[in-house]
């Protein structure tokens, strides 16, 4: 069972109070994108074994969406951050690097 803290209302609660919303930071393909790019956006996922960024909703709390950095192998939560950003903020990246030396966001997001 994950224990998560909502970055909006500050409530810490068990996983059942939240709802997972899939991979974070997907970039929507614009009108000039081709079929391959659109198929990638719609369906292809990183599905990493390790550090992962994903969307969650505080469904049975304040109701707001947020982002979470989490390890899919150990279930360690590195931190939660606001929903309206395109990439994890520097402090989250630092926290991950403290726990996973050698990990870089660029290398991860090839």
């Amino acid at each position, binding site marked *: 069972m994950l224990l998560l803290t909502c970055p909006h209302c500050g409530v810490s609660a068990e996983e059942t109070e939240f709802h*997972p919303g899939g991979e974070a930071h997907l970039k929507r393909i614009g009108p000039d994108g081709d079929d391959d790019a659109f198929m990638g956006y719609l*369906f292809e996922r*990183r599905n990493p074994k390790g550090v992962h960024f994903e969307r969650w909703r505080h469904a049975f709390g304040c109701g707001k969406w947020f982002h979470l950095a989490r390890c899919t192998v150990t279930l360690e939560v590195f931190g939660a951050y606001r929903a309206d950003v395109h990439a994890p903020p520097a402090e989250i990246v630092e926290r991950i690097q403290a726990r996973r030396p050698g990990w870089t966001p660029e290398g991860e997001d090839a």
Partner: protein
Amino acid sequence: MARYSVFAIARHAASWHQGWEKAWRSPEPKSEYDAIVIGGGGHGLATAYYLAKNHGIRNVAVLEKSWLGGGNTGRNTTIIRSNYLRDPSAAIYELARGLYETLSQELNFNIMFSPRGVLMLAQTEHELRAYKRTESANRAQGIATEIVSPERCREIVPILNVAGPRYPVLGGLWQARGGTARHDAVAWGYARAASDLGVDIIQGCEVTGIDRDANGVTGVQTTRGPIRTRKLCIVVAGHSGVLAEMAGFRLPVESVALQALVSEPIKPVIDCVVMANTVHGYMSQSDKGELVIGGGADGFNNYTQRGSFQHVEETVRALVETFPIISRLRMLRQWGGIVDMTGDRSPIIGPTPVPGIWINCGWGTGGFKAIPGSGWATAAMIANGEDPVAGPFGLERFREGRMIDESVAAAVAH
């Protein structure tokens, strides 16, 4: 390979059963193979077996990072059925179910196929209508299923509570020739028969990299050294994304945990498989007497092979409601597997963006039942370049919007 038979048992009894040969050879990996299958689960082993048996491609290795069947094949609840909605699904699942009927004889290994019947309960009006639609589709596909009344459900499963309280049973979809089989035996049986045809079964050999040149795949890096090949088939279920990344492409697949549990053993109380998809639980009874219980998958990416407690609670609550008689049973063991989910809940079989690499994955929560048909069709696709059964399941269906949608048909699809 010495044949297993009642006479063999009698003969070996005379020497206190000390003389049995190993079921399969475990050779050192060669430096090169005509084809390599990554993943020693049911689907990988069946693919290797049919490559050798049906297509004469025998210079083949199966590379397994841990032990045979240690992935989902040895962790599943072994429901076998073919009552799917779409024609391509019906074709591959019924091919598999049909092969299961005689697989023990074919492999000379008792896989304990038990066509005890699978009953899917309809507990809402919508579910009943959906199952009537499935029954009609199945009739057109030549698959024997029937809608049965609540009274008949009660006859088939006397411990069933048809009266509710939350979701009274309004009917059921009954497939009399569905059932179960022994999961490890399916992996072991295919491994033994494949080994006998010349396939090298190599356990404790993890693929850590995939080599390619301008023309496609050239080999793999493993924990037991590099191995060359021009034909590679990735069959690693929950680890499909990891292998795809090594090969340089992405998949429409997400890995999540699915779990199951068994109760303490009791006298026989249920002689078929019952699935209650509205309340998210299903149950059968093993030959040892344990009730084999499963439910829904987790909602987030996970590689831990553990389940989460709230799903145990949810599943058990659903089944106590459905079978009040089990309310005081203690649960013995619980475990999880990492299942490879696609958006349309149908598998992926076919070539990948890298020439020479095929993939078989995306079986998610329900691929055990498909092992013989999947191996058969995947081997044919590798050998012939195409196959009518595997064909519709290619990766390109996502780009073409040609989904094989089984997600609406069953919420808990095992």
